[in-house]
């Protein structure tokens, strides 16, 4: 085409004719000369605005004050509640319970090392799981359940976002199943898993699958619904551009729909992970999956004088891990979005 024959200087002239584009369009001044790569952009997005000590203080005194007020109120009010197991523990007792759990973990590790040294080869250590073991079990359970949920929810969500018929077909089911509590799912899941899973793999114990499937069933929905909204949100003109370029359905999905839907998918996944972690405790508690939920349940059943403090400590641990998981999802989202430029 004749375009190819346009020499560079003429091309430049074509810009020169219009009175300096920079003057005309003020925003263009801000435009960078070259695109920073996504790692730089990611790091940039993580930088606080100004890192002076004054700003630091300004930003941090409200949360610190909130925590201090909470601890003081707790310490003052807790001793006034007389339970069957004695006074409700205050912050100090709960911290001590945490220390005790750590000691138990150390002791158990030593016992395990001792066992490995003395026992004949081939035998498996069967001591009680430590608190840390239980945390890891819980993380594994949620990770597995959440993974399955995501693998189901994203394709189904995309499909329902792209096909009105499919959306209308599954909408009633989604609306009905979405509000169901994990406690109601568990018995059904237990029966199904017992019927389907027959293997004796220690990594895929039935209690583990039960808890993970309950996590899946409860954390499916936010990702599914958000993905559907994301797939619908693709700019109409952009789809027209895709038509003009005659994209194949696969190219359309990969180049138009997925990038447009990505922020929505991540929002959904973040909510899903939060819900998954939340329902895990209930699921484990009933499924007897050896994680944090079971720990809480066992302490409750055991009812020793330290139990309340230990349960309270695990509440903080559960909350803290949930917070970390949410943050990790946020970081993952920023990273993926920076790498895709969306």
């Amino acid at each position, binding site marked *: *085409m*004749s*375009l*190819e*024959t*346009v020499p*560079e200087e*003429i*091309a*430049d*002239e*074509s*810009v020169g*004719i*219009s*009175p300096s*584009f920079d003057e*005309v*369009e*003020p*925003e*263009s001044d*801000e*435009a*960078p*000369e*070259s*695109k920073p790569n996504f790692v730089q952009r990611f790091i940039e997005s993580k930088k606080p605005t100004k890192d002076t000590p004054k700003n630091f203080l300004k930003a941090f005194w409200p949360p610190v004050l909130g925590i201090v007020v909470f601890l003081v109120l707790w310490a003052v009010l807790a001793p006034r509640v007389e339970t069957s197991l004695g006074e409700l523990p205050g912050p100090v007792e709960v911290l001590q319970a945490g220390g005790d759990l750590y000691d138990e973990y150390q002791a158990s590790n030593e016992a395990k090392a001792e066992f490995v040294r003395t026992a004949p080869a081939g035998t498996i250590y069967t001591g009680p799981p430590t608190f840390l073991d239980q945390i890891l079990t819980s993380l594994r359970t949620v990770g597995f359940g959440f993974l399955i949920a995501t693998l189901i929810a994203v394709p189904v969500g995309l499909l329902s976002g792209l096909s009105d018929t499919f959306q209308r077909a599954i909408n009633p089911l989604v609306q009905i199943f979405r509000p169901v509590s994990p406690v109601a799912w568990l018995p059904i899941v237990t029966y199904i898993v017992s019927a389907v899973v027959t293997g004796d793999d220690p990594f895929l114990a039935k209690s583990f699958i039960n808890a993970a499937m309950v996590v899946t069933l409860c954390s499916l929905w936010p990702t599914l619904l958000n993905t559907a909204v994301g797939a619908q949100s693709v*700019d109409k*003109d*952009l789809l*027209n*551009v895709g*038509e*003009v*370029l*005659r*994209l194949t359905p696969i*190219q359309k999905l990969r*180049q*138009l729909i997925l*990038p447009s839907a990505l922020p929505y998918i991540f929002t959904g996944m973040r909510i899903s992970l939060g819900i998954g972690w939340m329902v895990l405790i209930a699921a484990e508690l009933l499924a007897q999956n050896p994680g944090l939920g079971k720990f809480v349940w066992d302490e409750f059943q055991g009812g020793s004088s330290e139990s309340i403090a230990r349960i309270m400590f695990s509440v903080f641990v559960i909350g803290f891990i949930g917070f970390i998981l949410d943050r990790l999802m946020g970081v993952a989202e920023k990273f993926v979005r920076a790498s*895709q*430029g*969306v």
Partner: protein
Amino acid sequence: MNVPSIASQTGTTDLVDITSDDNEPKHAGDSQKLRCAGVKKTFKGAGGGPAVEALSGVDLYVRDNELVSLLGTSGCGKSTLLNIIGGLETASEGLVEVDGEQVVGPGPDRGMVFQNYSLFPWKSVRKNISFGLEVAGWGKSDRVERVNDLLGVVGLSEFAEALPRELSGGMRQRVAIARALAPEPDILLLDEPFGALDAHTRRSLQEFLLTLWQRTRVTILMVTHDVDEAIYLSQRLYVMQSHPGRIAEEIEVPFGESRGPMVKRDQRFLDLRDSIEDQLR
């Protein structure tokens, strides 16, 4: 429908090949690049109401290397007509031909530019322009060369690696034009290309488009509601009216191909503008 073929109507079968490599400046030839014959579009009435006739039998043509405007108020069906030519919508009746071949769907031979830029927000300027070539199966070195040429043509070489959101509206629209030009289309279809821009940027992009057209000789059909813009840029324009959408008048613009902003003070320009505005009122 029984429509005579474009060749028998114009009496020529060998259309000018704009992909040829000769460096001769090309002028609007007699050959028709685009032809619409009796294009009708009827929308079903909402809720079983009477059908709405958006376009009632539009006939128009665009010659090779010509810049033509479709001018009309909102709702006159000019965008619908452009979408039918682009293949994004289908006509209820009638025929659209590009180079004598009937249009049956969208394709890169009719590059489209929309009012709201519609760039891929996650692709750099370079990749936005290059993407269509990639899809069309161009080799890598051809792609790079073509994109670099176009970046020069639209004056955005420095911004090749920027993302669309880092650019101003005018710059984005220049990227969109470059993207539409990339696969060497037979005709460029512009749908209110400067409608989302402020008055100042709009004027400078009009200059830009005029220069681009003068240099590249690409055939352009542009939809606009701006009378001054239509007269200033086009060689010929069609005035459309609504209810039902139809072409009311075809006007040859009495200015040469290289025209400057001074043309806007020419008495013929002012008279033409007044008469068109009377018609649109």
